[in-house]
């Protein structure tokens, strides 16, 4: 039997509940490989949010807690304070991280709480049927921007840039894309190492695809992702003040 999935994936709960072609599947696969390579599956606690991320509630071979919307970060902060030996991951979508949960994400960065926050950005609120997210770019049609998003709702939200501004020096903040899975894995591993070795905060935004709500096939999904990458810059976000 060839390995087709990471060891840290719970085989018993596959096929999983994400839609065909969902970027969560690609992200979680690379997260899974990162956990395998760092050999930290057994000491990782995985926190997930509301929205499509909640479909990962029994996805990994790790203790998992599904929280309320936007509350994964403060739960994992409290958890890590009580059990610093565990690797704490807060996994969320664009709503959980940049709307209802933004305050907690920023304060975790502000305090350098040693957790790793991972945010999957597919430019919409997918589980509820495709409403706009803070990350929806100008002109994009969603179910709550039927004529395309306009500036009075804000342009695409630059999360990692904002988070880096408020973080402390030792934080690790980056943006990656599911168009480059190997880089997703390497970056997630680096983020986790920043928690383990430097006892510091890390945050990775993953640009992702949503064929169901974008109403695109595989080809058009990746074309849209390419277009997102023109606006959302990839790579580690460095401290501007240096």
């Amino acid at each position, binding site marked *: 039997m060839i390995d087709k999935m990471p060891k840290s994936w719970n085989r018993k709960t596959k096929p999983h509940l994400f839609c065909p072609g969902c970027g969560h599947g690609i992200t979680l696969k690379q997260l899974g490989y990162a956990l395998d390579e760092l050999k930290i599956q057994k000491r990782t606690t995985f926190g997930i949010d509301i929205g499509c991320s909640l479909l990962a509630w029994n996805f990994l071979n790790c*203790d998992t807690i599904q929280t309320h919307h936007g509350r994964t970060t403060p739960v994992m902060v*409290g958890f890590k304070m009580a059990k610093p030996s565990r690797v704490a991951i807060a996994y969320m979508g664009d709503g959980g991280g940049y709307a209802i949960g933004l305050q*907690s994400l920023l304060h975790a960065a502000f305090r350098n709480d040693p957790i790793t926050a991972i945010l999957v950005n597919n430019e919409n609120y997918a589980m509820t049927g495709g409403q706009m997210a803070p990350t929806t770019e100008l002109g994009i049609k969603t179910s709550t921007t039927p004529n395309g998003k306009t500036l009075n709702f804000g342009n695409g939200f630059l999360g990692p840039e904002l988070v880096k501004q408020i973080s402390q020096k030792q934080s690790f903040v980056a943006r990656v894309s599911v168009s480059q899975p190997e880089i997703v894995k390497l970056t997630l591993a680096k983020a986790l190492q920043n928690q383990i070795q430097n006892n510091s905060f890390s945050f990775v935004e993953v640009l992702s695809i949503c064929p169901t709500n974008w109403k695109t096939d595989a080809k058009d999904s990746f074309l849209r992702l390419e277009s997102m990458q023109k606006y959302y810059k990839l790579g580690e976000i460095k401290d501007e003040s240096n």
Partner: protein
Amino acid sequence: MNKNILQNLSGSQASVLGALAGGAEIMFGYPITPATEILQGWVEKCQKDASLSYLQTEDETSAGFGVIGAILAGKKAFTASAGPGNVLLQDPISMAENLRLPFVGIMMQRGGPSTGTVNYSQQEVTLTAFGGNGNGLRIVYSASNIAEMHDLTSKAFSTAWKYRFPTFVLGDGYLGKMSTKVNISDSVRSVTSTLLLKEQSEPTYLRNCYSSEESFADMLKDHISDWNRDKDKISESESYKCKHVSELVIAHGIVAEAAKEAINSMGSRKIGLFRPITLNPFPTLQLKKVLQDNKIKKIFIIESALAQLSRITKYELFDKDIQIIEIDKPALGFTPEDIKVEIGKI
């Protein structure tokens, strides 16, 4: 090691000592009057004992979720809040209800709704017992004096971890700020806390979101069954001068203490006080016993709220042929003289 100490304490200070006595290890909180002193007092304790910790969070909601995170990691965690903070805490408390987490909170009631006043009321009974979008499976103790601020806070941890329902101690601004000499026990109640995310080779998966009505309803049924099984063990009350009486005062918290003084000064009138110590689960059997042992003609329900105590009390009394008089003063205190005058009118 039981050491009774007589010391001058405020209700807030007593509560901090109670948390320590109950085995608390970590507190998450956001400053809000009149609960701030509890956070402040706990922070001072942390300076002297490295095994204790705290986090002042960005708001009350985050504080509540921090408590949840620490509980999942097996630590005895708590928060303290009031009024609008209590409102914000309904989000995490609902999650704690769903997952049967031993969430402990000290709620210092103040005038509401909204920002209201910072000092006093008994208006957070419904909120603390039945808030959120659940079934009210929450244990609520109401402290009536400083010794109870200590003892009930301590007890809240053992109750919460034993029965796994979110557990609260209701105080209020007057109790928080008043100081008097009080005798409190220094013993630490031993509480077994366990890892809720178990770190076993078979992972623990905890979720609060279900796809099917049926499986969710089954889970709720189990919770309700546990509640019904345990509620009579959990509920507590005090009967004060309830022998050979024909009238009963029902009051809780600091109003009950004022009622005691009023009753003492009413000489020959055959009136006693039934004081629920747990508002939820309500001490139904104990109240029934008082009614059985006496021929009660009138009940005075006295509270600094609009019908919050009387709503849950009348639920217990609906089939009884007794005259019930509600004496409500939302957000205003009752001195013993006030109570004597109000009862004297009838």
